[in-house]
């Protein structure tokens, strides 16, 4: 019996070692490219750090400056607007599209999935160039259609007018954000237990009741995942801003990510940029935790 126990312990130890060995590459990657940069980011945020000069410890001065920086506060506001508008619209729109296409015949469903997924796999630069052309003040298609149909009196400088610029960015962001949620929702809806739906229909449930009482609870984990990734993506909106507006006009499209980039890479204010990164990470973490909590309670 004792021999059997020791054999079993040796086996467990060997399997544990093998398990850790398999995990090691990922662990090295995770520690080196995720944990270490995070710790470094928090650490550097306490310094006045710049290129080719010894860092100067300044405690929480970067954080104090952050909340007195009008541009940062404006960027924070813009980022929150993007998240508040983009996340629910993306979720609702992708759920609606998925509900319509998930039970279509195979090729039709695939075609729709491809169409909606296309902006996701298209490079940001290509997407931005096309949208920039469509929004062009002088010969853009929106102004052409708008003026010819009488919707607008004269050309609108969509990306050059602070009243419209942020809305345009959100619109583009939506087109690049809905692809993945649609694919995920189509899969989730296909996995809903059809026998429950059929039983409810036999009992006289309406389509809305079938959706709300049977399908919605079953796709809740997918919804939660979509909410979290869309929130994170919206908070990290950067490429579109850099390619289309550089944060303008008059800082109306500045986002925290763009402002981090500007401070760190243009002004070499590494400590200040890192402080913004820490604040952004805290906000995203809190929101994601709240979303998980809400989903758990349901």
């Amino acid at each position: 019996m004792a021999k059997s126990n020791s054999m079993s312990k040796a086996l467990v130890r060997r399997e544990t070692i093998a398990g850790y060995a398999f995990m090691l590459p990922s662990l090295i990657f995770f520690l080196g490219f995720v944990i270490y940069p995070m710790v470094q980011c928090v650490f550097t945020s306490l310094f006045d750090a710049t290129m080719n000069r010894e860092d100067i410890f300044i405690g929480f001065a970067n954080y104090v400056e952050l909340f007195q920086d009008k541009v940062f506060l404006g960027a924070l506001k813009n980022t929150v607007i993007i998240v508040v508008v983009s996340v629910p619209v993306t979720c609702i729109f992708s759920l609606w599209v998925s509900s319509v296409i998930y039970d279509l015949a195979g090729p039709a469903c695939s075609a729709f999935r491809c169409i909606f997924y296309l902006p996701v796999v298209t490079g940001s630069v290509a997407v931005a160039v096309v949208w920039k052309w469509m929004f062009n003040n002088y010969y853009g298609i929106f102004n052409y259609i708008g003026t010819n149909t009488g919707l607008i009196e004269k050309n609108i400088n969509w990306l050059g007018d602070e009243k419209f610029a942020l809305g345009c960015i959100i619109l583009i962001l939506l087109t690049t954000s809905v692809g993945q949620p649609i694919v995920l929702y189509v899969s989730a809806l296909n996995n809903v237990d059809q026998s429950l739906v059929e039983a409810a229909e036999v009992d006289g449930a309406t389509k809305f009741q079938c959706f709300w009482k049977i399908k919605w609870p079953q796709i809740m984990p997918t919804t939660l995942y979509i909410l979290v990734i869309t929130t994170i993506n919206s908070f990290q909106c950067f490429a579109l801003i850099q390619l289309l507006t550089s944060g303008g006009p008059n800082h109306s499209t500045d986002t925290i990510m763009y402002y981090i980039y500007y401070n760190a890479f243009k002004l070499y204010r590494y400590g200040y940029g890192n402080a913004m990164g820490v604040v952004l990470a805290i906000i995203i973490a809190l929101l994601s935790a709240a979303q998980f909590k809400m989903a758990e309670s349901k």
Partner: protein
Amino acid sequence: MKKRKFMALALSCVMVGSLTACGGKDTGTNQTTADPAPASTEKAETPAETKENTDTQTAAPADAAQAAEITLWTYPIGSWGDSATVDGLIANFNAVYPDIKVTVEYLDYTNGDDQINTAIEGKQAPDLVLEGPERLVANWGARGLMVDLADLWTDDAKAVIYDSVQNACKSNDGVFYEYPLCMTAHTMAINRDLFEAADALQYLDEATGTWTTENFQKAVQAVYDSGQAAVGVVYCGGQGGDQGTRALVNNLYGGTFTNAEHTEYTANSEENVKALELLKSMDGIDFDASLVGGDEINMFCNSTFAMAFCWNVSQEKNNLEKINFEVLPMAFPSEDGRPQLCGGIWGFGIFDNGDPAKIQAAKTFIDFMANDEKQAIESVKASNYWPVKDLGNIYEGDELMTEYAKFVEYMGDYYQVVGGWAEARTAWWNMLQQIGSGTDVKTAVEEFVTTANTATSAQ
């Protein structure tokens, strides 16, 4: 069991190996290596070539002939952004210095700075970089990242390189961080066909390419009245091409961007405020926060605009196929018709990577490219600009280059070496956006100067 263990170990090795591969040095598609010429013992030379090369080597630093591998990162300065051209230039170099291997990486102005800054932080800065004083001197030089090029700036070099260029290549404390190769004067351009149709050519001097502020106003009004609603645009969507808007504003009433010592921004002068107010009030000139210099060039080339403020000879050469009208390059309008154009000066700088052999090899490369009698002409021609010293008429028979050459004499102060330049550039187009959206000119200009001067004093 042994087999399973072996498999597990092998898999782990593969995964670690793949991680190592991911972390390897970037060998992007825009990086090319110009192979050195065969070793001199293997190289068959004609007697004439042998003599030429011997002459050149005599001119080069005596201890330069040492083996080294150096990296050159180049911004797209004319054909210095084209690998076929640069490979040819490096082949010339390797014909004389076969033991120095030069690897080239081609940068663009959108991401180039980020690539270099990332490389600096990763202790992987290139040995050589081809760009202008605002980066080599005012930015990386001021941060102590560049090598002092005093030994290249011999008395002979100082005697032949134009004074204005010399001043731009050294820091305020007199250290040379750039060895210049070529220069140009940034101009503006007009659609001559549209101006002719609007009878506006009478307001400009085609021979000298100059006009007065008063005539500029009349010309723009005439073109606008002829039905061209968008005559020109003060683009301010970003920093791309901002030298055009700066030169326009500074020239209209003789304002300056900085003081003569390049220690303080002076864009809030009465002259600059007057110029901005004039531009804001003119029919046919809009402040557009959705466009940058590159957009303006494209929209001038497709006739959307009748004039471009972001222009130089390269723009015309690069866009010849797109343009179906006659382009007339012009200096920026000024009250007395004597403009002060913004210049571009490009040359080499060396990052101090702590390896004396590489630094020496890089200096040898610079000396060959910029000072070798025959090679310097080829190096300058590759840039599509003009030499920084008298090399004779290197563009003889080239009508376009001859037409643009007349603007070089109007080159004004090279103020881009002022401190806080990166922040000031951003503040400039932000200021133009404010003015475009209705903010009082004086208020916006004061805010710009405060921001820019704060950045200068913080450095």
